[in-house]
């Protein structure tokens, strides 16, 4: 069973539907017992980093996610959920993340040319570099996924498993052991997105 962490951020209907579409048994939950019992955890998120980090902390689910990650359970952060996996964000101030993956969240305006629109919104191609992470085993270099974001993962070079070109090479996905994150929305990325979710669902649990 895959547990989608419900900490009061965003609409999780599409995410759950997309997991059901790849044959996974997915539940939306804030119940620590269910999250501990789950084989895998997905950390979703939309909106501002500060608010989301606070909600996660208030619910105590931040510690739980860290504990489960330490046990080796596969964790997938999506969009803001990916950003929360890193150490820190500079979106409207300075906010602590979960620190499961080294790196910080900075405005994309810092690295892209001035004539590029912000947010980075739409379909962009994924580039994997020399080695393709198991999360992307059903994908081909250049497959398109759907992005909506104004901030990106910086100083996380060691963990980057995919980038997207938008006037600069932006972090599209990160991984450190059993902890993974996608800046884009696999649940909104058509068959390519479903193939990523399928690969995550099929990963061996340690």
């Amino acid at each position, binding site marked *: 069973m895959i547990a989608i962490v419900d900490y009061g951020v965003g609409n999780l*209907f599409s995410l759950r*539907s997309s997991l059901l579409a790849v044959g996974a048994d997915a539940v939306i939950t804030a119940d620590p017992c269910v999250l501990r019992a789950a084989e895998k955890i997905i950390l979703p998120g939309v909106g501002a980093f500060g608010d989301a980090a606070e909600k996660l902390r208030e619910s105590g689910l931040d510690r739980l996610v860290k504990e489960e990650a330490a046990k080796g359970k596969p964790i997938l952060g999506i969009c803001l959920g990916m950003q929360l996996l890193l150490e820190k964000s500079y979106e409207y101030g300075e906010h602590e993340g979960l620190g499961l993956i080294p790196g910080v969240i900075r405005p994309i305006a810092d690295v892209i040319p001035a004539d590029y629109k912000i*947010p980075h919104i*739409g*379909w962009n*191609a994924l580039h994997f570099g020399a080695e393709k992470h198991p999360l992307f085993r059903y994908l081909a270099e250049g497959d398109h996924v759907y992005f909506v974001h104004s901030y990106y993962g910086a100083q996380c070079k060691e963990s980057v498993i995919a980038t997207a070109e938008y006037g600069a090479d932006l972090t599209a996905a990160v991984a450190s052991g059993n902890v993974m994150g996608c800046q884009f929305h696999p649940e*909104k*990325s058509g*068959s390519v997105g479903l193939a990523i979710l399928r690969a995550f669902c099929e990963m061996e649990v340690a």
Partner: protein
Amino acid sequence: MITKRIIPCLDVKNGRVVKGVNFLGLNDVSSPVELARYYSDHGADELVFYDITASAEGRALFTDILTEVARQIFIPLTVGGGINSLEDFDRVLKCGADKVSVNSGAIRNPSLVKEAAKRYGDQCVVLSVDVKRVDGVFRVFAKGGRENTGMEAIEWIRRCVGDGAGEVVVNSIDTDGVKGGFDLPMLQAVCDAVSVPVIASGGAGCIRHFSELFHSLPQVDAGLAASIFHFHEVDIGELKQSLLAEGIPMRTIKKG
């Protein structure tokens, strides 16, 4: 590289997809769920659902259909029509919409865009504007293009973007339904005024019109159309292959 988006628009009334020619004379075309799946399978980058129902029953039927679409289709969904309040935003977002398009509702309630952007984020709020030239000036029209509000369109669009609209759909009443091509001068004026994504609507009749749009106005992010897709006068897969061959960045999907 970010791709240009091709967006079919589905007007829904009493649970069926309809399309007006110059906004008049509605025809039933197909089931919204079936049509949405067809478009998604053939490469549509996003879908827009427009609720043109007036009755409460029709509205309930629309949200049911939307929920069913969101259960089966995994590309971004924008929903518009009858969005007048934050409660309306809530209602359609809960059914699985990713973005909400406001038109007359923003004209009636000038704080709607600002409040919605604050609550749901700029990326969630799409400003849709029906624009028509009156004595050489771009004017905002309301009520499905029937009523001249007297507002100057570029000023209105600039204001709404300032309030937090994350994207703008520009529908030219002058070119809508005519199939003579998008309204390039109008779109140019909007692109010059705002820096958020601009979606062109009204006037597409064939593949060449999309090619013309993206070649002459590289700032435009997406092209939206309805009847030419519904009646299969333009096939989305062929359209995208053709634009890709001309060097316009397009997302294409593998068959099978």
